[in-house]
């Protein structure tokens, strides 16, 4: 369903992505792990075109986007069917919880306001924050903000949700509620790509885990395959350092 072909990206002299290939199937949850600075987040941002790849192809169902020839219209098309959840939530500070969620419906999808509110309330129910609908993001805990951000992503009705370290800026006691919500979405067969440092979570939720190093996916498999029978010394070093 989602296919990345030979994605290259550099910032100045720094080559961040070195020809990444990745495939995500319908309903699959794919975790991307690896040491810091290996381009995991950049890859995710390329899928949403927040970063423009230098080269490579992104295929999402019938959308075929080549970095060399992509048009503005195609970028908007891509963004209409992919959603991003950020490490630092990035909720719209001047909008209430409900407004954050329905913004894309009203503005981009041109859904009628009443209908949008209906959809928005359903989503709020799902993320468990109905009673916070008229509250501004600044008044919420980090965990609640991230749940709203996931709700905002759901409102796009995306083919795939991209999570960029969704729990990294949360207090430890707030991580659980966000992971629970992601698990719930996994059960509903939402297609997701998750960049994470939570190894136990990756093991538990991800159908496939991709290990990235030096701007490339160097190994991929189910979590058992990747964690138990590690053949690559770089991966075993990374995993042993984490479990210490």
């Amino acid at each position, binding site marked *: 369903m989602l296919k990345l072909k030979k994605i290259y990206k550099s910032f100045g002299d720094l080559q961040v992505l070195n020809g990444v290939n990745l495939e995500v199937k319908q309903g699959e949850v794919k975790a991307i792990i690896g040491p810091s600075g290996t381009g995991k987040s950049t890859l995710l941002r390329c899928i949403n075109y927040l970063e423009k790849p230098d080269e490579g192809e992104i295929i999402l169902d019938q959308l075929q986007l080549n970095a060399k020839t992509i048009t503005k219209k195609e970028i*908007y098309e891509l*963004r*209409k069917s992919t959603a*991003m959840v*950020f490490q630092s939530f*990035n909720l*719209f*500070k001047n909008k209430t919880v409900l407004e954050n969620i329905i913004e894309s419906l009203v503005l981009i999808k041109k859904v009628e306001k009443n209908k949008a509110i209906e959809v928005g309330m359903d989503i709020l129910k799902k993320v468990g924050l109905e009673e916070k609908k008229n509250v*501004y993001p600044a008044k919420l805990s980090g965990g609640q903000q991230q749940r709203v951000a996931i709700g905002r992503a759901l409102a796009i009705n995306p083919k795939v949700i991209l999570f960029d370290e969704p729990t990294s800026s949360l207090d430890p006691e707030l991580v659980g509620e966000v992971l629970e919500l992601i698990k719930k979405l996994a059960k509903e067969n939402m297609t997701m790509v998750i960049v994470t440092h939570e190894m136990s979570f990756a093991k538990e939720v991800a159908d496939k885990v991709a290990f990235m190093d030096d701007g490339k996916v160097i190994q991929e498999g189910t979590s058992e395959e990747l964690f138990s029978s590690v053949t690559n010394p770089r991966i075993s070093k990374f995993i042993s350092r984490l479990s210490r």
Partner: protein
Amino acid sequence: MVNFDIQFAIRLVPLMMQYLRVTLMLSIFTMIIGLMIAFIISLIIDAKITFLSPLMRVYVSFFRGTPLLAQLFLLYFGLAQVIPVFLKLSAFNAALIVLSLNSAAFMSEAIRGAVISIDKGQMEACMSIGMTYWQAMRRIILPQAIRTAIPALSNSFINIVKSSSLAYTIGVTEMMAMAQLEAASSYRYLEAFVVIILVYWLIISVLTYLQNKLELRLNQY
């Protein structure tokens, strides 16, 4: 104490108030027009539009880098000699144009600074849900930036009110012109200028009070 004719001073107050209308009209129109131009300039510079963006930077540099009085004289006396349209311009309108253009240069920098100060994540979130740059600006970035810009914009408005007194030099009969006229005809310069300074101070105090009210209202999120 030198003799300060209190009664003369008090008699001046209602006279000033008649011309307060002109001062306020000039100031408020300037603020409205100036603010609109300022938004356009700051967005053009922020969006880095080719050709227009450097042009706007020159505009800002010119109006911030030359005296307001010189700009006023250049338009009303100078350009009127070569461009016939400016000959037909009333002094009030000439002052309005120059004050608007001038204040826009200052206010555009206040707005641009506030836009820059907004967390980059806000724009990224807008982009990620499929907004265009202009949609993001209108719905998310500017509403937040305006809150940050209010103190600086209030400062600009205060400056506009005071700068409007320069209009008297090209013959607009506003408060300052009135004070000058009364002072000259009665030789009571002290009284006339004490009164006008107090009136200006009062207006600005009211504006500052309104600014605080506005900031409180915008602090809801």
